[in-house]
């Protein structure tokens, strides 16, 4: 079935995104990986809306897109803040707080 392909693609995107969040040490790359996970969610929602013949999933996807944009706006502002204070966006160097 056609929709099942979309679900497989979404699952794959999700795995790539989670791997990126865990493995990448660059803040911008981590943000992009999180965006991959959110895209996989949108793909899922739209594929399921198609399968269920129901518009709720597409509306949900619109909400996800709008809020993800707001999140990334805040995230990039913070990355910029870090860059200004330390001239680096590597997450490994964020280690002043520990214990």
């Amino acid at each position, binding site marked *: 079935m056609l929709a099942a392909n979309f679900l497989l693609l979404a699952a794959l995107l999700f795995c790539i995104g989670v791997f990126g*969040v865990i493995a990448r040490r660059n803040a911008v790359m981590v943000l992009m990986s999180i965006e991959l996970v959110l895209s996989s969610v949108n793909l899922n929602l739209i594929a399921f809306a198609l399968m269920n013949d129901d518009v709720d999933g597409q509306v949900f996807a619109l909400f996800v897109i709008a809020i993800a944009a707001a999140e990334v706006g805040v995230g990039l502002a913070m990355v910029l803040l870090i860059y200004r204070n330390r001239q680096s966006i590597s997450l490994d160097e964020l280690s002043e*707080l520990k214990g």
Partner: protein
Amino acid sequence: MIGLVSSLLAQAEWTAPAIDWHAIAPELILVIGINVVLFIDLNIDETKKWMIATLTGFVMLAAFIPVVTLGLELDGVPRELFDGRYVIDEYALVLKALFLLVGYVVVLMSQNELEDGGYYQGEFYVLMLCSVLGMVMMTSARDLVSIFVALELLSIPAYMMAAWRKRSSVSNEAGVKYYLLGVFASAIMLFGMSYLYGTTSTTKLTEIGASLTDGDLLGLEVVGVVFVIVGFAFKVSAVPFHSWAPDTYEGAPTPVTAFLSVASKAAGFVALMTLIFVAFPDASDVYGPLLWVMAALTMTVGNVVALRQTNIVRMLAYSSVSQGGFILMPLAFAGDPDAGGSALNAVVVYLLVYAFMNLGAFAVVIAVTRKTNSGEISSFGGLFSYAPGMAVALTVFMASLAGIPPLGGWFAKFNAFKAVLDADTTSAYVLACIAAVNTVISAAYYFKVLRTVWVDDVPDGNTAPINPPSPIIAALAITVIGTIAIGVYPRLVAGFGNIQDLTGALPI
């Protein structure tokens, strides 16, 4: 183009839904308040910025009024909006009142901190009001979409507040760690929600609850339930998803830490409760063991690590992680027919008590560190000799956190144990034993602080009295009275969180 729109409108026969304006009055007042505060902040002189804090406090109290009138009018019948996707029942009202009160106390605590630090006051209070609005919405949300929107509305301002000291690299680090893990957690939660939507073809919680039944769950449904719970486990900083909490709590400005550790955590628990009791009532095979393990790990790890902390904010951070374990504990038995009702009651009561005692502990820390400029526990030495009032207040909060009668924390812990023992299974007794051992461990580090305060000498010999500003005294008064009153007279809160309010009256 206009012809197309009008022909579409003619086809759709769309009628506006009836809106119960009284029921959403608290949210509306907050929305209006956010705009008013923002507008006044734009048009006010820099020297008069202190007014913004007062105004924000008034907005919180104004939103409190409809919560009270609704409570008087409700009489056990929930008011539903938008086809049962937004419900105002007694459960929601109690928690709305809690969030507004916590918001008010945090405004009192942050006022002087922001003025002295020269931070951006107007923006801070606007963001805080937005975050409180998200929490107030979360209590009523009964739909996956509105839970998600409320979660983001409360989280996004909180990320910014954690990084509020722009030039301090520690505060930046706190904000970024909180942001990255929070956004990642909500992405995972969304992925779970998409599977729940796909398998049940609805986003309404009651309908999801009707389609998920134990022993008959599809693989995708199991994944959906687990991912949604894991997403909220980040929010409530349950072990093993707690790594952001101590760093964020230590690096963020202390009033923000108080806000995050009480309000944001409580909002996570509210969402978890709503989902478990309304959407997953028959999926306890999946969430029960998961929450059991998380509760046991959370209280143990939080306590053991808290034992060796020397910074009081970090110690309170780990203590709040371990308190989160005690709040999770009853939820593990939410699906048990004997324990379900008392589990909901125990969690709601624990959240109310926890808010008072934890906010109070942070208020004392803020007042004392204004003088000592140090977060080390040793800098609290001899507090009793120069600030007896502060020392007594800190004793009340620490003893309450440790669960000593007759303070509020004792009643909260008692309720949580009662809910677990009501389940009457081997796993329940094992978890109760783990919790009992943890209560003893936690007493060790709470009393270590008290010994420093009462017995040790003043480290730098500076015994000038503390003159805390009046907003902090007001915050301390509210929290001390709340902590003691609930402990001495538990019936004040014991009736809150009746399971019938949440699940009984809702049509599926």
